């Protein structure tokens, strides 16, 4: 291949999209051609520069505004809202801040109402039964497990950084995450023991673990499950055997961290090391 052919395929080569035989030809050429290698280096520099772009933070009220539009589209706009502004389309949202204020008020009222009825409904549930249901569901279907928790307990979907308003402290997941895990969703859940931070994290392989941070010790979560106390990474830690996975709980400053969906003791060590680091930072 000559230089111009190489140049035409340079992105394909750089992005690993070539078959192995062409790839070899490219490599052969690049090992001898200075100018094509220079072009490739320019691509690398560009990637590096792009990697330095900071991650934009979505505005916190975006969902509320969106939900307002969804309600409006579904024709669910309540009397109070429509009396403030006759009608508005989503593109005009920003101009109708009054409408949003009114709607936010409505949400608060309706959420408050829902919570009240939920509390009455589920007052008889004791926490160990709900949590047991959650644990059983988690191993096969983390999604439906989450629904069990959300159905039973008052909760707010939050950005970990904003959870401080509801919790009174910044949860460890907000300061950093263990390497190789990504936050999928973070909630503040009002459990019978205390108000907890709950964060669903995804591993690189797609599987999930859930990190709870809570004020009180929560042995009732694992009532009747086989447990062992161990020292992991220099810290006293309670390990609970679930069917194919483990849960682990340890003291984290004044609070406790409990993680569901752990694969092995090595992972416990890793998570404890992370939480220690997080508490040093905060």
């Amino acid at each position: 291949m000559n230089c111009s052919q190489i140049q035409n395929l340079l992105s394909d080569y750089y992005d690993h999209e070539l078959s192995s035989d062409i790839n070899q030809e490219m490599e052969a050429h690049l090992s001898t051609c200075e100018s094509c290698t220079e072009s490739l280096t320019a691509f690398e520099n560009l990637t590096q520069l792009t990697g330095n772009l900071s991650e934009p933070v979505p505005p916190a009220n975006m969902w509320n505004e969106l939900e307002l539009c969804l309600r409006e589209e579904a024709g669910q706009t309540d009397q109070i809202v429509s009396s403030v502004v006759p009608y508005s389309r989503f593109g005009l949202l920003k101009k109708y801040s009054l409408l949003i204020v009114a709607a936010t008020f409505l949400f608060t009222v309706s959420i408050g109402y829902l919570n009240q009825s939920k509390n009455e409904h589920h007052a008889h549930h004791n926490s160990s039964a709900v949590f047991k249901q959650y644990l059983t569901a988690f191993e096969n279907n983390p999604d439906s497990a989450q629904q069990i928790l959300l159905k039973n307990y008052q909760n707010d979907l939050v950005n970990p950084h904003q959870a401080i308003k509801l919790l009174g402290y910044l949860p460890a997941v907000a300061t950093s995450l263990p390497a190789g895990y990504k936050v999928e969703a973070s909630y503040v859940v009002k459990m019978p023991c205390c108000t907890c931070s709950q964060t669903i994290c995804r591993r690189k392989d797609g599987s999930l673990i859930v990190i709870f941070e809570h004020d009180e010790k929560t042995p009732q979560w694992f009532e009747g499950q086989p447990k062992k106390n161990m020292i992991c990474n220099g810290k006293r830690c309670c390990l609970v055997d679930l069917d194919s996975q483990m849960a682990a709980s340890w003291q984290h400053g004044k609070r406790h961290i409990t993680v569901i969906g752990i694969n092995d003791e090595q992972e416990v060590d890793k998570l404890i090391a992370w939480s220690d680091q997080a508490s040093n930072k905060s």
Partner: protein
Amino acid sequence: MTSNKVDNQIESSKTTQVDARLLARCLKNDRQAQRQLYEMTHQAVYRLMVRMVGLQEASDLTQQVYLKLFSKLHQFAGNSKFETWLYRLASNEALQYLRKNSRKKTTTLIEDPVNQQQPIAERDEQRELLGVALDRIEPELRSIFLLREVEEMSYREIAKIIDVPEGTVGSRLNRARRDLQTHLLELGWRA
């Protein structure tokens, strides 16, 4: 340069996997499911919007993407990945906006109040240069560059998202990268 094509495809999406059950609930207008879907995916949509159209319009356009998403969800066939479909809605929305507002110059500079642990002036400067350079290349090339470099999509996914033959993705990326490099050098970029 040691990783191969297989690695590249496993890690090809920065959004999290959305499953069919959640989508089915969204189709029934289950608001909690819609919110969950939004929470799982909006960071990526917003990120793309900020870099495509600028900080000012990004949240409005992100919201419009989700309004379209929920109203068109029944059209999602399920034979492609949900993320691909979502990126497609998002990049169409951005390109449509840019076509309508082609005279207005947008800027993709990003303010970042959260990440201030390392205020390295030079790095910030370089970052801004990229924002300006991105703004100067054709929107179509900008979207393809962002899908590859930021969202880490494979060529196959990019082809589906922007609706071009898979074989042309590489040559478009060549153009995007060279155009960006030209603008960066004009702006005084030192690699």
